[in-house]
C-alpha cells in the first residue's frame, strides 16, 4: 500500500500528540520512575513515635563526655584530618549551627559557646528522599532516620542532601583507625565498625532505644543537658519541657522539620 507524504505527516503528527499528552506526560509525572519519591515512604504507623531531643545549652554539662560515650560505643574512628574525620555528635559555634540567626552584637557567652550537634532525625528528612538504594530510611514506628550499611553504595547523595552536615564519608579504611584507637581507646566488640566507602551518622542509638534504653549521649549527661523522648506523646517529659522553655531548631526554613530542639 502506498502512503503519500500528506498522510504520513498526519499520522506522525497524531502519534506525537498522543505521545506527549498521554503516555509521554505520564512518564514525566513523579511516581514509579523516582528512586525514592516521598509517596513511596511508608506512612507513619498510627500511634507511631517520633523520637526527638532537647539540647539545653544553658546547663553545665561535660559535653565532651557525651561525645566520647557515643564515639566509643559505636567505634567511630578518631581521625585528625578535618577533611576525612568521622563525626556522629560534635560541637560547633553558633554561626555554624544557626546560620542567619547570628548577629554582630552577640553576647560573649554566645560567641564562646560550643553547641552540641548531631543528626536531627528530621520528620521530613532530605537524606532519605535522595538515597537511591534506600540505605537511608526513616523507621515508620519511631521516626529514627536509620542507615542500612549493607546497602549503602557510597554515592554521597545524602551528604549533599542533608542541610546540616550530619553525615560523614569513610574516605579511608575506618577499621584500621577503629582498631588503633587513639588515647588508649578500645574497640567495642559488641558493635560493628564500618567499611571504606560508606556514609555514616548518628542513629539515635537505635540498638539501645530498641531495648528501652536512652541514647548513650543522654545517659552520659549529669544535669539534664540532653533530654530524649517521644515528640508525638503530649505527656512525655520532652513535650512538658518544650511547653515551658523557649527553643529553636536548626534551619527551620529548609523544611526538613528537625526533631532536635535547642535552648541556646
Amino acid at each position: 500500500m502506498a502512503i503519500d507524504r500528506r498522510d504520513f505527516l498526519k499520522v506522525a503528527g497524531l502519534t506525537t500528540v498522543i505521545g506527549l499528552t498521554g503516555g509521554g506526560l505520564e512518564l514525566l509525572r513523579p511516581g514509579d520512575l523516582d528512586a525514592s519519591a516521598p509517596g513511596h515512604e511508608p506512612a507513619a504507623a498510627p500511634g507511631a513515635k517520633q523520637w526527638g531531643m532537647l539540647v539545653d545549652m544553658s546547663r553545665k554539662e561535660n559535653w565532651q563526655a557525651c561525645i566520647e560515650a557515643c564515639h566509643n560505643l559505636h567505634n567511630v574512628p578518631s581521625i585528625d584530618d578535618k577533611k576525612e574525620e568521622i563525626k556522629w555528635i560534635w560541637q560547633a559555634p553558633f554561626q555554624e549551627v544557626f546560620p542567619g540567626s547570628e548577629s554582630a552584637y552577640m553576647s560573649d557567652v554566645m560567641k564562646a559557646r560550643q553547641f552540641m550537634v548531631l543528626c536531627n532525625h528530621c520528620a521530613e528528612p532530605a537524606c532519605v528522599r535522595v538515597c537511591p538504594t534506600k540505605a537511608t530510611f526513616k523507621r515508620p514506628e519511631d521516626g529514627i532516620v536509620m542507615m542500612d550499611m549493607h546497602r549503602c553504595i557510597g554515592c554521597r547523595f545524602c551528604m549533599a542532601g542533608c542541610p546540616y552536615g550530619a553525615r560523614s564519608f569513610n574516605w579511608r579504611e575506618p577499621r584500621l583507625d577503629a582498631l588503633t584507637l587513639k588515647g588508649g581507646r578500645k574497640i567495642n566488640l559488641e558493635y560493628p565498625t564500618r567499611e571504606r566507602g560508606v556514609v555514616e551518622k548518628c542513629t539515635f542509638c537505635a540498638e539501645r532505644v530498641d531495648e528501652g534504653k536512652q541514647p548513650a549521649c543522654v545517659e552520659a549527661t549529669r544535669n539534664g543537658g540532653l533530654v530524649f523522648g517521644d515528640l508525638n506523646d503530649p505527656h512525655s517529659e520532652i513535650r512538658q519541657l518544650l511547653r515551658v522553655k523557649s527553643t529553636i531548631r536548626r534551619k527551620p526554613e529548609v523544611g526538613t522539620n528537625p526533631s532536635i530542639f535547642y535552648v541556646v
Partner: protein
Amino acid sequence: MYNTGKVLTGLVLFVGFITYPFWGGEASPVPKLQKPEKEKQCIEPVAFMRAQHMQMLDDWRNDVVRQATRKYTAVDGKQHNMSLQNTCMKCHTSKKEFCDKCHTYAGVSPFCWTCHVPPKETT
C-alpha cells in the same frame, strides 16, 4: 579421515584430564570445626544451621536494621538476640577455627567481617 587414532586418543586424554577431580584422588577432608565449650546445642539444629545459616543471617540483618525487630524465636521456643557479634560469636569464639575453616573449604568469602568485628581480632 586423517589421524583418527591420534585425535581420538587426544580427546580421551583431554576428557580424562579435565574430569580428574571427579574420579581420581581423594576428596579433601571435611574440616574439623572448633565446637563451643559451654553450649551443646546451637540455637537451631546443626543440620539446619549448616545449610541455612547464611539465609538466617541475611534475614536477621533485615529484621534488625530495617524492621527494628531484635528477638529471634527458635523452634524450641527460646528467644535470642539477633546479632552476629553478640550471639553467634559469643559461643563460636574463634572466627579462624570456625567460620574461616569451613568457608575456605567451600571456597566462599562472605564479606561480613569488613564491618563486623570477630572476637579475637584485638588480642
